[in-house]
């Protein structure tokens, strides 16, 4: 049987990889890819705590489904913003989008 710690360490590693992608990629689409990895690692944690706690309490799975819905909404709006920005400024490089920088 796999101990809970393996799942938690796996999720922490996946979260850190996603965090690295968010912080250091230049392309806005790649930043959204990193956010997807982070959301997935959170879902792994939720499912693991559901399984290793009381299986009859469905809170962990319900929370994971809400995270799915939020991730879908986030990706739809985020990619629409990226496409809109690309149309107006012809770039998707995050550090060239400095219109609101003071």
């Amino acid at each position, binding site marked *: *049987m*796999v101990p*809970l*710690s*393996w*799942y*938690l*360490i*796996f999720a*922490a*590693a*996946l*979260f*850190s*990889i*996603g965090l*690295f*992608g968010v*912080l*250091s*990629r*230049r*392309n806005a*689409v*790649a930043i*959204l*890819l990193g956010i997807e*990895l982070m959301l*997935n690692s959170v*879902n792994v944690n939720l*499912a*693991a705590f*559901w*399984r*290793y706690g009381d*299986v009859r309490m*469905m809170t962990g*799975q*319900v929370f994971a*489904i*809400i995270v*799915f*819905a*939020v*991730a*879908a*909404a986030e990706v*739809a*709006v985020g*990619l*629409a*913003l990226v*496409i*809109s920005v*690309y*149309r107006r400024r*012809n*770039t*998707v490089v*995050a550090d060239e989008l400095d219109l609101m920088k003071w």
Partner: protein
Amino acid sequence: MTGEQIIFLVVAFFTLGSGLMVVTTRNLVHAAFWLVAALFGVAVVFALLSANFLAVVQVVVYIGAISILFIFAVMLTRKEMRDRGAQLNRNWWFGALLAVSTFGGLFFLLRGWEGFSKTAPAYPASFDAVSELGNALVSPNAYVLPFEVASVLLAAALVGAVYVAFGRK
């Protein structure tokens, strides 16, 4: 080492490797495909956790919808970024440092917790998690309100996405 542990380790290393490729590969189309691989790995992890419904939803929603959306977005915005310049920004070492310290911090935080090396309680026989989950999502005593709010959020996000991306002259 039991068989389940070996399967878990193989899937975990595959998923982490795919995740590393997502954040480091130069070609963004390849990054999107590596994301599909990582999402499949997470789906297998859900199956290992006997969260069957989550595994299926992971494949349908993430791999079927979200990654296709990513591939479309990459293809619509690609020509500028293709192979020009660096894919990582100037402060990438700071991002790497922060990611490694986040992992280290989480690891030390979890190691001090007494439930860390807990093993799973036996899965109750004749327990139907999917119907239990369905009941929880529509029962007024449980999570019907978050469920409805999530559907309103999805509708609003889709309308907003169409509005934002709609090309006016």
